[in-house]
């Protein structure tokens, strides 16, 4: 069915169709509507989910962990300070390999207080053992959230599905939705590896492991993340077979004979496509590479894809405040270090706190990438 939905509405609608066993949540701007609309589905009897209203995001994630450890398909939604407050529990969900799925409306972190879109929240959680997906449009947010449930359960890893706060969460777009039945068919029932409540098979969850086993368990968790990439590709393919829309871990746009490309994530990719088209019309060989999956980082694929260009401009919608560019830039330079041919890599930080990223801004980045150089190591786009 073709519907007009905002990002939040679309994510809540996908949650309705997923019909998770448990949702434990605490509202926060700009993801509030996801929880609000889902709570309405619960009270209208449109889902079978147990909705747990909790007193904080820390409690929300704690309740989700308990629920997922009991073998339930579990979701919540949050953003910004909410995700930050969950931080401690994110690592526990990751270590326990619980497939909790969380749509977030990405937002900046205080201070100063700001409610608008950037990737600071999820990127600050990058080491917590969660998969992270960044979506370009409302449609992609809807599709990705559905995929995330299947990927998370198959890979035994929790997943964040991020749409840019306000820019997508509050933007109404045309989306094509599926029947509830088809979504549930696609996902199938959740069969957990283990279940805390299974008294026929008693297990110990969350044991203390010291110097003897902690590192070994972490090593095994790392392997879980390594193995997630083929799982993601597999589920993307199954999704394409069933629903006809295909997504890649990365996507190349007009890169065939490109000399310079821009690498970025999220809603700005759409704006960048327009800028690429405009530059192509002027005969300049530029393209775009969209990174959709940030965790697990598809490092081999990124190396193979990007090493062939003369210049790669990396755009981060967050700054790691490390004096050396954003998280994606530092990771990409590591990825390319042992590439047979290393491209020029330029670093751009843009759109913090929802700062407008215009077509003109996109064109400027492309121009500089095409020229292959700029003065400063890191450029802060549009900063006065």
């Amino acid at each position: 069915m073709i519907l007009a939905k905002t990002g939040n509405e679309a994510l809540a609608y996908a949650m309705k169709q997923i019909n998770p066993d448990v949702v434990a949540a605490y509202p926060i701007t700009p993801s509030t509507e996801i929880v609000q609309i889902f709570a309405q589905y619960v009270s209208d009897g449109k889902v079978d989910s147990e909705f747990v209203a909790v007193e904080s995001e820390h409690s929300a994630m704690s309740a989700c962990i308990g629920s997922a450890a009991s073998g339930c398909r579990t979701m919540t939604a949050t953003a910004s300070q909410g995700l930050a407050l969950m931080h401690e529990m994110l690592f526990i969900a990751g270590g326990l390999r619980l497939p909790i799925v969380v749509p977030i409306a990405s937002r900046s972190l205080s201070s100063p207080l700001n409610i608008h879109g950037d990737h600071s929240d999820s990127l600050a959680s990058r080491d917590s053992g969660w998969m992270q997906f960044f979506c370009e449009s409302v449609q992609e947010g809807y599709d990705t959230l559905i995929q995330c449930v299947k990927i998370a359960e198959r890979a035994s890893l929790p997943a964040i599905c991020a749409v840019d706060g306000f820019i997508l969460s509050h933007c109404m777009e045309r989306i094509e939705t599926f029947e509830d039945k088809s979504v549930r068919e696609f996902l199938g029932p959740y069969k957990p590896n283990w279940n805390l409540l299974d008294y026929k098979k008693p297990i110990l969850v969350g044991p203390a492991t010291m110097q003897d086993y902690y590192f070994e368990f972490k090593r095994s968790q790392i392997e879980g993340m390594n193995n997630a990439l083929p799982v993601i590709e597999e589920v993307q393919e199954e999704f394409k077979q069933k629903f006809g829309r295909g997504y890649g871990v990365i996507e190349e746009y007009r890169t065939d004979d490109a000399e310079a490309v821009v690498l970025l994530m999220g809603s700005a990719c759409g704006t960048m496509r327009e800028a690429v088209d405009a530059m192509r019309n002027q005969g300049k060989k530029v393209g775009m590479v969209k990174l959709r999956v940030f965790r697990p980082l598809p490092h081999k694929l990124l190396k193979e894809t990007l090493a062939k260009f003369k210049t790669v401009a990396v755009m981060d919608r967050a700054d790691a405040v490390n004096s050396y560019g954003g998280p994606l830039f530092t990771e990409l330079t590591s990825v390319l270090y042992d590439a047979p041919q290393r491209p020029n890599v330029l670093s751009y930080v843009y759109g913090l706190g929802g700062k407008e990223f215009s077509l003109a801004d996109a064109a400027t980045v492309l121009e500089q990438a095409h020229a292959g150089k700029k003065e400063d190591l890191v450029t802060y786009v549009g900063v006065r």
Partner: protein
Amino acid sequence: MAKLKSWKELPCGAIIEDMKAVRENKTGAWRSVRPCWNKDKCIQCLNCWIFCPDAAVIVEDGKVTGINYDYCKGCGICANVCPTKVQAITMEEERK
């Protein structure tokens, strides 16, 4: 001590499925005071069995029959919850 496992042999999610490992860890060695159970005074209220955090009170056919010193850490909760008028469990110095 059993050979430590490699990371490849560990279950997903740091759970412990094999309760043998738990059984092999004899926490009785941590004890400095030991509970002494007096069969004649015991009224079989099972308070000690309910409250023991280490499941170290042995119950057979619904009746307390003793303490499992392999696992009892000597915390004294059993003696504490034993009714004051009964005092079937007393804590004594662990013999060196």
